[in-house]
């Protein structure tokens, strides 16, 4: 098994992946910039919801943030060209991840995925063929790499799909076809299929097809015989449809289409590269070997990495209560478009010594997007409450107590009180323990 993973294969899949990933990230960065989202998400807010343990991450102002995104774009160009590859991937990983850590509001599963993939890329010799690095330093050229260097990308993609599939195995999704039943009627404007969007069976078809697809697609991609149909029909068909039906998910379908392409064999990728470069054959057999010391620790590094990748999506099992309600262990778990949740919050700051109360206008502190994201996610509600306590203390309120009236509607059910209104949120600690102040979920 271990030996099999060390078997040298053509470097071509890594090279294709490097180029496609770079192109996609360059396009994504330009799109993000052009939409004005740098300013909207990283300059305009007055307050940022940081991640636990990453409170030291701050944005760098309008100029600084645009420089960072410029740097990210530059890194993607270097990755495409294969120039200063190791440095470029490291910088890309650090800069991209830093930006994502600024505000929980902007958390997206595929941003997390991009961080992970760029981390993996740092360790992979994807610049050893068809790159400027090789053009400048011809000695670097390799035509074959150990199979596992391609395998870890496939494994990473497989993990994403499989956990996304597992996440869909819940009663709402399978038995009620919710949230599809809620979201599809909003798509009745689509040509041809528009009228079908109100049909219940269509919602069930979408739900079940999505679940089966996510659970099994990786296995059909691994199998040489089923691979072409799995990719060209199902991967492309599925993700192009999601891009049409749910344009709000942005880059996600494209990320998955690009990354799933790595499942094709080395021979296939080699033919593809030859087709574009006009080369014939693979060239002289030059096998890439990791330095001896690194080769010893790499199995340990990646063993640990994938253990974490499996443990993190499972961590929700350690918490009591309904996952969709509490969202404890919800993020970083490949739960994509899984529920319809909206909320509304009213915060009141009270001064115990005078009994005076001050109602908060969220628009004073949060952007509309932050307000929306905060209103359904307990950890953000708590972080915001702490921020309010700080702000009102600065305004001269002595020992401000913060109370929240929150109403949340989950998966098309009626809204219900979400937070215990008698609890002073300013006194609740920020940690990974179960939220005792979130009211328990009960089926209506």
């Amino acid at each position, binding site marked *: 098994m271990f030996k099999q993973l060390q078997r040298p294969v053509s470097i071509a899949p890594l090279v294709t992946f490097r180029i496609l990933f770079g192109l996609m990230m360059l396009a994504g960065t330009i799109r993000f910039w052009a*939409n004005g*989202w740098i300013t*909207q*998400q990283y300059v305009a807010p007055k307050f940022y919801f940081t991640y636990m343990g990453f409170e030291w991450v701050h944005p760098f102002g309008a100029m600084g943030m645009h420089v960072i995104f410029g740097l990210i774009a530059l890194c993607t160009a270097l990755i495409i060209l294969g120039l200063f590859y190791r440095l470029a991937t490291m910088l890309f990983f650090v800069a991209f991840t830093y930006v994502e850590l600024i505000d929980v509001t902007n958390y*997206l599963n*595929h941003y997390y995925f991009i961080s992970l993939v760029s981390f993996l890329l740092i360790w992979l010799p994807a610049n050893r063929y068809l790159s400027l690095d090789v053009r400048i330093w011809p000695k670097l050229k390799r035509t074959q790499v150990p199979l596992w260097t391609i395998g870890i990308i496939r494994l990473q993609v497989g993990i994403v799909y499989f956990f996304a599939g597992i996440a869909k195995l819940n009663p709402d999704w399978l038995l009620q076809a919710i949230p599809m039943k*809620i*979201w599809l*009627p*909003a*798509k*009745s*404007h689509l040509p*041809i*299929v*528009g*009228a*079908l969007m*109100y*049909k*219940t069976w269509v919602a069930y078809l979408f739900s079940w097809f999505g679940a089966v697809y996510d659970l099994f697609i990786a296995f059909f991609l691994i199998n040489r015989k089923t691979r*072409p*149909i799995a990719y*060209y*029909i199902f991967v*492309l068909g599925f993700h192009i449809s999601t891009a049409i039906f749910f*344009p*709000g*998910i*942005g*880059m*996600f379908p494209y990320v998955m289409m690009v990354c799933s392409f790595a499942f094709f064999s080395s021979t*296939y990728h080699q*033919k*593809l590269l030859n*087709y574009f470069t006009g080369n014939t054959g693979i060239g002289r057999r030059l096998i890439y070997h990791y330095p001896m010391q690194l080769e010893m620790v790499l199995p340990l590094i990646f063993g640990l990495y994938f253990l974490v990748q499996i443990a993190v999506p499972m961590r929700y099992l350690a918490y009591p209560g309904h996952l969709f309600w509490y969202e404890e262990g919800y993020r970083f778990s490949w739960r*994509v*478009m899984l529920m319809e949740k*909206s909320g*509304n919050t*009213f915060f009141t700051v009270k*001064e115990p010594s*005078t009994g*005076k*109360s*001050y*109602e*908060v*206008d969220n*628009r004073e502190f949060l*952007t*509309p*997007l932050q*307000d*929306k994201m905060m209103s359904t996610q307990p950890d953000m509600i708590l972080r915001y409450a702490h921020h309010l306590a700080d702000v009102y203390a600065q305004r001269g309120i002595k020992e401000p107590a913060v109370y929240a009236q929150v*109403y949340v*509607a989950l998966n*098309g059910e*009626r*809204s219900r009180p979400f937070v215990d209104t008698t609890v002073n949120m300013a006194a609740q600690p920020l940690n990974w323990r179960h939220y005792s102040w979130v009211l328990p979920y009960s089926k209506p």
Partner: protein
Amino acid sequence: MIKLNRKMAAAAATVLAVATFVIACSKGGGGGTPEPTNPTGFDKTAMLTNYADALIIPAYTNLQTQATALETSVNTFLATPNATTQAALKTVFKDTYLRFEDVSVDQFGPAETALFNNFVNTFPTDSAVIEGNILRGTYDLSANASISQQGLPALDYLLFNPHAVTDFTGTTATNRKKYVQDIVSAMKTRVSTVLNGWKNTYRATFIANTRSDSGSPIAFLINQFAFEMDQLKGPRIGWPFGKQSGGTQYPNNTEGFNTGISVALATENLTALKNMYNGGGSGKGMSDYVVSLSKQTLNSDVMAQFDKALSALRAVPDPYTTSMTTKKPEIEAAYREIQILLTLIKTDVASATGVRITYQDTDGD
């Protein structure tokens, strides 16, 4: 290479076959046999047409007519400023303000481009700057910075403050009269701009777009319902009452402060909102869309809550500034009912219709 091509050809053929199948199927269901009433479908185009033709455009037309009447009445007052002409003007002014409340929820499309609500109804007005403008006789009413120096709140101050009548006979009378006429005519122009914008181009755009994503008419409507409810809860009722400020009241910050018509305005605002929500009772409103999504109970709860909030508001007499000290329990009750209605719209209705409450367009998953 040959092998690759064959696979690709097979793949392409299958895609084509599936596409044909899908198209064939949907043709059979949608257009082949006449299917006049889709059991669960909903005609969004008819709903939007109803909003444009029966609600929004008529509301702006009424405001335009009323603004012309206001201009006449203002000129009569300015010609002979006294208590009698002022009283006559007050009736017309109040009617104009009420007609504004009917369009307040429509701040999208041409109204958003023109920042209509900002220019016509930013309150509290800035009386100090207004007096400065009058003294100097120079001002730019088209500048965004001037929103609190014009519109209905500025007229409320200029025409109905306790010393208004004497002001119009004093040393600044000439400049003051011109200022009033300038802001009336600026307002009239703005109403016409928005109304023409609707009639000329936006109506067609509005009706043609049956999407629900951010920036679509349906999302605009739901977001504006929520926004107006927020305005009602905050600036119109709650904030002057001291909800934000530990009980310290700000009577000067009420809407229609000098004319003392705050509650009448708030009631009209909410009535218009209810009318918008149920599409004027035409059977082609947002309420009917919600019902078509099998949310019958939610819809009847929302309609009932509109009535509850309205009757709670009506229990508070004008002038609101007096009620703020004499009718505290009634105001608290109205505030509570408004908050319940706000939650129903912002959370339950938004969720049922799959509309995001935020103007910001971003990726999500």
